[in-house]
């Protein structure tokens, strides 16, 4: 086994195992930190898929943005120093049935392997291509998402604003 493949195996296992910890952990704060590992694992996997730009974006947006938001939410809403603070859960068997059903369906799809011939492309940098695509073919989605972010900004500020100021 090459070092390349060993590293890949390590990343893949980290990603999957930490995702399972996110799901099964009894404490929400542990889930949040396991999610950190999962997200970094995904960033590693993206490099193997010649998505260098996305790998960096993954770290900056997910780890630097979304995860911080989630952690902030956890810290705001939970008394984490209280050892009795264990999150309640729904029935594990029902949830497990749902998860396993999904796994069976997606597993069957992968097993059927209908994708046709796959190509073995070499690693190629994608950043410059993404940049030019964003301003040519993907110009409309780029503009639409800027309107979306503006609307989300207004909405989130409205909901988050403290009420005393506005009375």
């Amino acid at each position, binding site marked *: 086994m090459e070092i390349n493949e060993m590293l890949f195996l390590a990343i893949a296992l980290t990603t999957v195992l930490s995702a399972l910890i996110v799901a099964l952990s009894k404490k929400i704060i542990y889930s949040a930190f396991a999610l950190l590992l999962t997200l970094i694992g995904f960033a590693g996997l993206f490099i193997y898929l010649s998505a260098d730009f996305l790998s960096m974006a993954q770290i900056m947006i997910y780890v630097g943005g979304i995860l911080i938001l989630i952690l902030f939410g956890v810290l705001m809403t939970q008394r984490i120093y209280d050892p009795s603070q264990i999150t309640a859960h729904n029935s594990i068997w029902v949830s497990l049935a749902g998860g396993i059903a999904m796994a069976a*369906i*997606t597993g*069957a*799809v992968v097993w*059927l392997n*209908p*994708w046709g011939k796959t190509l073995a492309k070499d690693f190629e940098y994608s950043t410059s291509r993404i940049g030019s695509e964003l301003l*040519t*073919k*993907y*110009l*409309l*989605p780029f503009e*639409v*998402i800027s*309107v*979306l972010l*503006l*609307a*989300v900004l*207004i*909405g*989130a500020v*409205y*909901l988050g604003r403290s*009420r005393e100021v506005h009375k």
Partner: protein
Amino acid sequence: MNNLESLQFFIPELFLTAGLLVTIIVELLLKKEQKVFTAYLAATVLLITIFFLIRQYAIEPAALFGGMVVIDPMAVFFKILTAVSTLIIVFFSIPSFRVKAEYYVLLLATTLGMMLMAQVNDLLMIILAMELVGLVSYVLAGYRRSDPKSGEASLKYILFGAASTGIMAFGFSYIYGLTGQTNLFEIQQALQSTQHNPVILFVAFVLIIAGLGYKIAMVPFHFWLPDVYEGAPTPVTAFFSVGPKAAGMAVLIRFIISIVAGVSADGQTFTANAPIHAQELLAVLAVLTMTLGNLSALQQKNIKRMMAYSSIAHAGYMLMALAVFTSQSVEAVMFYLVVYMFMNFGAFWVIHRMTPHLGSEEITAYTGLGYRAPLVAVAMGVFMFSLTGLPPLAGFIGKFYLFAAVIKAEWYILAVLGVLNSVVSLYYYAYVTKVMFLNRGDDESAVSISSYDTALLLVFLIPTLVLGVYWVPVISWATQSLHFFLG
């Protein structure tokens, strides 16, 4: 068409976006007591947008922005419908949201999203447009921040919404894996030219239907709806019940005529691209949707909850027509949405304006309303019977076209189940009318109604009555709009 050439067909959207930005800036310059001005500004923006849209009537189909969106008469129809519904909602909201300027900005943003949903032609644009509508809707549902019910509504909405969008995107990724394309018509070509494994297409179809079905409140993705409809402020509930639902129907139609099926040469029937039994699945879901909606509506005591389940049932009727895959059924759905807009807005307007007078949203609070506010009660009765589909009201004509499309395609069992459902729905709609007219309540003081309330009530009442006897202009407009972009 490239980006620069596409701009000339994109004037309504560009104007709406500019109007949105201007509204934000104007809002900052106004004093608190002047903020109702932003509502009028938003209404003006929508009115001019509708004017631009009407100029696109009967336009030649074309793909814009490198195939990201299309423009065709069907898109124009749905864009006008959603813009008009938002315009009505602006006037609907003015009495309750006088100083809430952000509210109107958010309404304009959702309108942009709904207009994009009407013309999507790429997997990415489907996700983006639906999220633009969705994300703003979550905020609107929780707009009354001090009301715990409103917060609960928005929380349930975002949890279901986020999960179903993720599932839908997962389905899209399989479609992309099979065909290597994201443009809907390039996907169609790839699916028609090579034989793909039907199992995986079926899995992808089911996953995608989960996302689309959530938007139009299809069973079993309807759980969020009763709580959201009850908890959200009534103008917002009325808004959710028509605009986003119509836009969701538009996306579903686009999805059916591109990925699921292809339109035959004569343009009348759609033939499936792959043997995945999409029609049967949609038909079963339609029957489940209307049956569950109607049976649950029977048990409701809160009138907003009853209307929520009734809106699930109506989504079922429209799905029933869509399941037969003919252009006639698409036409019927388009006509039904116009009719549904007036009667549903009318019912919600009565609920919205009467709740402060009656002190409760319970159906029993409407006891004796026929003696306290005769005009309002008569109008409510008309809306209820129109929703049931009794002649000579607009709802009857709408349902007639839906059932005609199903029967013409020889899906008799489906039609019979639909009619049975309509009979069930008569019970709970008629119950409201019975309570209003046949029973007398303890409080018999007359309810005072402002002239603004009456004016808006007539805006809903007159079309509901007129479209029941003279519906030719609307149906011919729908027929004219049955001109799809087909790759």
